[in-house]
């Protein structure tokens, strides 16, 4: 199950779907291919809007039912990015009988500020990791005004 985020959609995964269904090998030579399920988060594209008081924990519950009861997969692996990481992580955390591998490109945790790295035993031991840390710090400083709007003034978009 591949879970998109905002401002994305199932379209994010279109280039990956066919290759994932085809016979391939892992880096250690094992055979691998997938059935691929790409749901739209509630409120996205053709998915109905989330009801009042709906959270990503509810989305995870529905996704687990979709995979196990509706589609009949006793066990599955989940991938999540951006907001899709929230229900994916809930599946990993709370449905461990069915969610047997989780894979993320984003996790639903607020990044740990650099000032706390030492006490939290976090090191950046490559120039790529350092670059990425600087990117996310730049986003926090000058790139996230939309986040405040959407957290607190979402209905404003109705009048635009």
């Amino acid at each position, binding site marked *: 199950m591949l879970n998109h985020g905002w*401002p994305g959609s199932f379209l994010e995964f279109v280039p990956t779907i066919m290759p994932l269904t085809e016979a391939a090998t892992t880096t250690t030579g094992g055979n691998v291919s997938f059935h691929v399920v790409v749901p739209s988060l509630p*409120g996205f594209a053709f998915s109905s809007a989330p009801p009042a008081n709906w959270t990503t924990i509810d989305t995870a519950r529905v996704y687990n039912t979709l995979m196990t009861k509706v589609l009949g997969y006793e066990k599955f692996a989940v991938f999540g990015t951006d907001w899709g990481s929230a229900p994916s992580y809930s599946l*990993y*955390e709370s449905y461990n009988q069915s969610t047997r*591998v989780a894979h993320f490109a984003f996790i639903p945790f607020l990044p740990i500020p650099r000032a706390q790295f030492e006490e939290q035993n976090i*090191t*950046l031991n490559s120039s790529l990791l350092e670059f*990425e840390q600087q*990117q*996310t710090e730049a986003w926090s400083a000058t790139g996230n005004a939309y986040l405040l709007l959407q957290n607190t003034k979402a209905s404003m978009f109705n009048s635009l």
Partner: protein
Amino acid sequence: MLKQPIGSDPRAGIGPSKLDHNEILRSVSLYCLTQSFVSSVFMYFQNAVTGGFRQNYTRPMTDAPMLYSAFKYNVGFWPPDAVAKVGNLVEYFNHDFGGHFPGVDNPPALIQDLREIGRYWEY
């Protein structure tokens, strides 16, 4: 070349990246034609209280393997030591090409990382 969208590799549309003008218009059109922009942002405030994005890094009970793929220009970044606090981290892949939408920004890398799930899958 495109003006760099936030969180995207400046090499958008080049090499492995499928993130060209057509791809962006396709995404914008999907939001527009399904009239789903407003409903797509409900998630932000609906989860603001319950903590869609949490502050406390805790290790869940599950023993299931967890993999992580970082892409150079992603807006969100968690170092390996941080990711390892919230799961049974068995792989941390890091790519110097791609950004926030790896499925279009660097599909070959995401595809190969996803295939590595096969190494940890128990039948």
